[in-house]
């Protein structure tokens, strides 16, 4: 199997000399910003959770919806994307023999665009002029600066994608007929998804800017929501694919095993890229104006995304079992004892994977119209995305940081920080069990989401939610401890840990694996298939929303 073993001269030099200093600076900057944002976003989350539980009165100059918007924007848009690109570019540099000078320039420009965008987004939120939540659904109308900031942020992400494409295309030109190494293959899939998912949201934002300034009077709310979710759902899956890359590529190496099937890995990536954007529609499963047969069709399209995830689950457990048995593990489940539970790099990744079992199951429940009707506007949904993003994605990112940060900083992971990491992982997990568990439960009892603390005039039902809100606050408090420990560990590994060489742990494919077919490299074809699937999925709702559209809505400032 040639994919991972085949190394170019540049790659070998790179391995010998360690990390490229200039490339490391890029990843270091992205990761540093990402974890600073995590820290601020974490405190905002704590304040929000305590306020929602009725334990904390916010000062008059700050309201719940401001914090809610900021927490969402920080955690969902900024923390994840800064981390993703810091991680992907470290991998691209490592695997493809260093970044091209041109690509470095593009990525730095992207960084500037993203920072400018973030600042422009945050200012109106701080001014209480954009408390529209991170979904910014019209007819809630924010200050124009908020939308302009989003444009800058999107341009930054596009530049990052383009940099990735150039880097991979250059490698392919110099390595004709070879398979793109697996980590870079993941990066390509992620970049393609993000590149195309940003198009609908960019169209949405470009219609909202003139509306927000006052040049246009009304906006088509349903079209905006549809364009948003074509992006929003894909963004979720971009984090997921980033986490998945670590499961497939990094985890086997950490446990001393090999990657199980290169073909399966690549097919999973292709399938996720083709089917993802259309999945956005299930976020609108109880929206009005869409006929039932169309919703029915979309349930199938959404559930189809579950299939590659099941393939992933199979592949992961296959790797674990094979490796553990090779190391002497026995019995039906006794082989689990052979896994390196004391290694934070593995532990965090494992919990991240395991949490995706209930998280994915919850997602499938929500995709079903009738079940979603029960939970759609409740805290259940908030619980769901704290389980998916807060555990599956965040813990994977944390697990990655324990080798990636030392790798790019030319330092090592000390046993002390490893121990701290293990403690942090458990605190985080327990905190999320409390928080996400109570959110799911109280959601089933009808507690609404996107609402600040209220007892509805001391109504008995609303009061019965209070114990769960307390559990939520306990979870939130544990999580902020987790955030502080995590950020401390990252800062320590970045600037203070002992100097040394850390490996970028990419696992090899099994020796007797069958060769990967070359059609997996034909991204041009897969992109066309993706576009046809997107066209098929969105032509019905979008045409109906536009042709049968209402007069449109003026903007509202409800806060």
């Amino acid at each position, binding site marked *: 199997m040639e994919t991972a073993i085949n190394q170019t001269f540049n790659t070998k030099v790179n391995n010998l000399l360690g990390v490229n200093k200039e490339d490391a600076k890029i990843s270091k900057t992205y990761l540093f910003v990402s974890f600073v944002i995590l820290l601020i976003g974490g405190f905002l989350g704590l304040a929000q959770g305590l306020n929602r539980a009725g334990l904390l009165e916010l000062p008059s100059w700050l309201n719940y919806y401001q914090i809610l918007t900021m927490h969402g924007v920080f955690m969902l848009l900024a923390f994840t994307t800064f981390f993703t690109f810091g991680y992907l570019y470290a991998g691209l540099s490592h695997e493809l023999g260093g970044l091209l000078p041109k690509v470095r320039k593009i990525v730095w420009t992207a960084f500037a665009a993203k920072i400018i965008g973030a600042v422009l987004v945050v200012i109106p939120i701080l001014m209480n002029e954009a408390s529209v939540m991170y979904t910014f659904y019209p007819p809630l109308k924010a200050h124009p600066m908020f939308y302009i900031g989003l444009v800058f942020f999107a341009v930054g992400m596009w530049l990052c994608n383009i940099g990735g494409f150039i880097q991979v295309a250059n490698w392919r*030109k110099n390595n004709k*007929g070879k398979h793109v190494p697996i980590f870079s293959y993941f990066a390509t899939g992620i970049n393609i998804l993000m590149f195309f998912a940003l198009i609908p949201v960019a169209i949405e934002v470009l219609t909202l800017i003139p509306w927000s300034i006052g040049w246009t009077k009304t906006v088509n709310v349903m079209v905006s929501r549809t364009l948003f979710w074509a992006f929003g759902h894909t963004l979720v899956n971009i984090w997921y694919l980033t986490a998945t890359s670590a499961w497939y590529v990094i985890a086997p190496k950490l446990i001393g095993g090999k990657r199980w099937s290169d073909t399966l890995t690549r097919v999973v990536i292709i399938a996720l890229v083709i089917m993802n954007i259309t999945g956005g529609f299930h976020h609108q499963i109880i929206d009005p104006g869409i006929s039932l*047969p169309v919703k029915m069709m979309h349930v199938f399209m959404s559930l189809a995304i579950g299939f590659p995830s099941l393939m992933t689950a199979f592949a992961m457990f296959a790797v674990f079992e094979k490796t553990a048995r090779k190391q002497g593990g026995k019995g039906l489940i006794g082989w689990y004892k052979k896994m390196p539970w004391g290694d934070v790099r593995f532990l965090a990744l494992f919990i991240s994977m395991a949490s995706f079992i209930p998280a994915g199951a919850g997602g499938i429940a929500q995709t079903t119209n009738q079940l979603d009707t029960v939970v759609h506007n409740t805290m259940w949904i908030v619980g769901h995305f704290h389980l998916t993003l807060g555990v599956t994605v965040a813990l994977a990112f944390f697990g990655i940081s324990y080798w990636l940060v030392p790798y790019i900083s030319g330092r090592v992971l000390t046993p002390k920080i490893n121990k701290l990491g293990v403690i942090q992982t458990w605190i985080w997990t327990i905190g999320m069990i409390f928080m996400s568990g109570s959110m799911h439960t109280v959601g089933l009892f009808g507690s609404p989401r996107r609402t600040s603390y209220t007892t509805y005039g001391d109504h008995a039902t609303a009061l019965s939610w209070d114990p769960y809100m307390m559990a939520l606050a306990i979870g939130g408090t544990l999580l902020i401890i987790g955030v502080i420990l995590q950020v401390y560990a990252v800062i320590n590994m970045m600037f203070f840990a002992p100097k040394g060489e850390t490996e970028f742990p990419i696992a090899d494919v099994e020796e007797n694996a069958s060769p990967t077919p*070359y059609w997996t490299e034909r991204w*041009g074809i897969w992109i066309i298939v993706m*576009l*046809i699937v997107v*066209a098929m999925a969105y*032509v019905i709702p979008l045409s109906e929303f536009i042709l049968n559209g209402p007069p449109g809505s003026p903007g509202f400032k409800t806060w």
Partner: protein
Amino acid sequence: MTQLLVGLFMIIFLALPPVAKIMESVMIIHMHMQMPMLIIAGFLIAKFFQERYPGFFEKWNRNGLPGIMLFIIIVSFWTLPRTMDEALNEAGMEIFKFISLPLLAGIPLRDSWKRLGKIGRNVVIILFTILFFVMGWLYVDAPVQLCNNYLVIDQIILGWGFLTTAICFVIYLGYILFVDPSKYE
């Protein structure tokens, strides 16, 4: 054998009255999902016939042209508004749809595609791109109801479905025109 079974299962599944009813209730799903899925079913079944009767295909479809002509005729026939209406109104036409698309479009498509060569394939794609633009324009712009069974809004949606698919074909044609695979492979 697996492909044959999958193909047959697809046809049976698509023909189940509740499945057929829900798919045929939306014009674009009827034409752009049910019909292509029937062709795909035939595409899968083709392998069985190719292995069973290699002489037949060799004799009648040596250069792929007869097969692709049959495919084009059958598919063009089913893009007409009138034929969709009749499939909904007359059982005989509905049965013909479920037989003609897999057997007379799916099977010849698979047998012809490899025989056609690069230029032949691209000619077929260009032909369908033009056809889809024309059909899209017809369905979007027609001032009257073209099908008795579907509303005007349904036919406009179908028209946009044709146009967006045609745009995807154009992107594909641009891709093969401008990207030289020998630089990478």
